[in-house]
């Protein structure tokens, strides 16, 4: 898992050097997607959420989904100014 996380970080680092060649929207999306994936892996395997009772993992996931929806709504609303 550590190797995967380091590898993901390495991909991010190298993407930055190629940033000029990638459309900016895709570039940002890929980076944030990679960050999200790393966060999920840390939560699942380092924080052991994968091995916790489903009630706890559901609790966390529901909270994250709600938080993400709220943040997304905020960004949409901010962008619509």
């Amino acid at each position, binding site marked *: 898992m*550590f190797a995967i*996380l*380091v590898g993901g*970080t390495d991909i*991010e*680092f190298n*993407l*930055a050097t190629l*940033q000029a060649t990638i459309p900016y929207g895709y*570039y*940002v999306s890929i*980076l*944030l997607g*990679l*960050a999200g994936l*790393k*966060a999920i892996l*840390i*939560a699942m395997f*380092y*924080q052991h959420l994968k091995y*916790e*009772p489903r*009630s*706890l993992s559901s*609790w*966390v996931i529901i*909270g*994250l989904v*709600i*938080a993400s929806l*709220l*943040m997304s*709504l*905020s*960004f949409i*609303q*901010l*962008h*619509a*100014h």
Partner: protein
Amino acid sequence: MAAQSDHMSQDIFPPRVRRWLFTTNHKEVGILYLVTALFFFVAAGLLALTMRTQLSVPDNNVLNEGLYNQFVTVHGLLMIFWVLSPFAFGFANYIIPLQIGARDLAFPRLNAMSYWFYLFSGVAIIMSFIFGAPDLGWTLYSPQTAFQFTPTIGLNVGAAALILITVSITMSSVNFLVTMFKMRAPGMKLRNVPVFPWAILVTIFMMLYAFPSFLAAVLLLYVDRAFGTFYFSSIQGGALLWDNVFWFFGHPEVYIVLFPAIGLIADVIPTFTRRPLYGSKYVIGSMIAAAVISFIVWGHHMFVTGIGLTSTKLYTVTTIAVSLPFDVMVIAMIETLIKARIKLKAAALFALGAIALFVIGGITGVYLASVALDHALRGTYFVVAHFHYIMVGGSIMGLIAGLYYWFPKITGRMYNETVAKIHFVVSFIGFNILYFPMFLLLDMPRRIQTYAPDTGWGPLNSLATLGGFIFGGAQVLLFLNLFLSQRRGPPSGPNPWDGWTLEWSLPSPVPAHDFDTIPTIAEDGTYRFGNGSNYPNGSAHLEHSKVGNGLSYSHLEGMSPWPIVMAFAAFLFFLGLSIGQPTSPNPVSFKPFWPLIADGAILGVISLYGYSREKFSVHEESRVESWPFREVPNVKLGIWTFLGAEVIFFGVLIGAYFFVRTNSATWPGVGELFSIRNGFAMTLVLLTSSLTAIMALASAKIGSRNGLIAGLLATFGLGASFLYIKATEWIELGTHGVFNVANGLPATSYFITTGTHGVHVVAGMCMTVYLLVNTVRGRYIKGDYHAIEHFGLYWHFVDIVWVFLFPLFYLI
């Protein structure tokens, strides 16, 4: 559960004083909350009466403009933060463990600490008057909060007070959530829990999601004033950024202060109508729906700020939608009342009055959901009347109903019913004379110190002032009645109202240990006690009988000095951060008052050490209802809940960064200012430190002391390395004059966001030191490794935050 401590300051304080300073018992903490909230209620009420005196006639000069604005602001802040919620949580502290069949809250010392943080935060907000209290309204709109418009440091002190109370609320939220999910008596399934605890549970969820946003907003406000950052004083950030982060919290907050009263009313009405609450599960479902919708209506506070048409349409729909669950709640209560023989005791009268006043306030809120009407009514006294009908009419009256309802249970004595009824009549009349005229003042702006005679507002203002004094005077009856009755009232007996909920099965006042035997609730949800006619589910009960066949537990009292000491340390620390004098106006910066900061920090370290070393054991009942977290230990659930709040906190900080960046025409390109290599290195270091934390846990599980020490040392070292790279980066950027907070938003957002993350890293390293010391002493390797696991949860979360900050600041 009962708590036991072997650490008590035997000689310094008299026993009675010691008891109240060091108690961790939920009932005593509840009483402390109630008394303190009532004190702030009086203080805020006196501010209001002074304001009403000022406005009673045109061109008055009882208060000058500056002082009037301070009174308006502190009145609002006190009522919302220091009266309404604490008043409700005073009841929650006392009653909820009794209603769910628990002996105390999950974390008694944390509960006590919540109270002391609350008290000291209140001291801070009152102290702010000395330094020039905040004078911008409780909403603290920017850019008025910028230093050039508010040069006094009273606003800094106010911000410190708000930070302290947010910490208090977060601790309480975690505590109540774990308690209600994990400590219910056998058979007390969630469907059998009374409505008041459900209302508190829903309130807590809202607090967990809303208050971190507020904390982030106040933090950004503070750094703007203290360090000259630009979040709220720039065109790209400014008023709109504050509006969004504040009202994201602000609208759920108004339901946070309302729902406990609704839950309370929903418990009171059945008792005095001798009927179960009609549609109780729909009432609970409606509360949940309203709580969820409350997070997507905040834009209706911003209809006149120029937000786009799409946004206004969305918020109009959601604002009207949020009224629907409240319709269900009110209809359920009215249905319960129809053709019921209502015992018109004071508690019932206040509950009924609260419903009526809440309906008026609610209807006027739906008017304000219309964008067209809002444009006309925004910032006028119509709005003032609307929210006072909700906050005072609905919430305060409901809470006073609770005061009369539970006064016999808390004190063991009955109050004077006649005086209480007079209190209700005078309050109800006074309230309507005070606030109804404000609906008619719909062309009078709010927050003005005076007005000209030719406006024609004089008569209605005079009437409102008269009503204010009637309403205020009526509360004297309340205090006199309760104070004298508490000393000389007749014994109330255990169940003067013939109530059905578990607290009425206990003696009045309730003994320290609560239940002699933890009750067991029958499969159909009934529990037998009392001498009334019907159960909530309709089955009759005929006799006094012992509650359940649960476990027995001997009485133990737990006291600890560390909650008050820690709260006082935090108070000193934040006060020192806020009362420093400005050193330069442009960019503004404040010189911290180091003596207080140092005192607070030293006392904080001492209290943390004392708290951790204190042998404070908390017995956990073996038979409890704990669905859906049956297999999750209490502390772990508490930590995950806390981390959820942290997600919102960092989410808002990152959101603020997105906001200002999206609104900025130019921004430094990738690699222009930050070394990507530095960011990459810091990411690798932090990821490695997570690995070493995992290895430390693995060592602890297998009982390897050396492995555990090595893992913890490595984690500490890597954390230090992270901070070293960060510090060198900051110094290099700052000393070259290229990039400091005065350079605008890129610097502002970078330093503040990564700085906040850095503070979390420092906190984690302090935890590592504590764990190392204990490991050297032989702990955590004999099956008691949970502290290592809990530390890991926090440390990995810090890692997760950086996983997002690295691409956001270094790569995009």
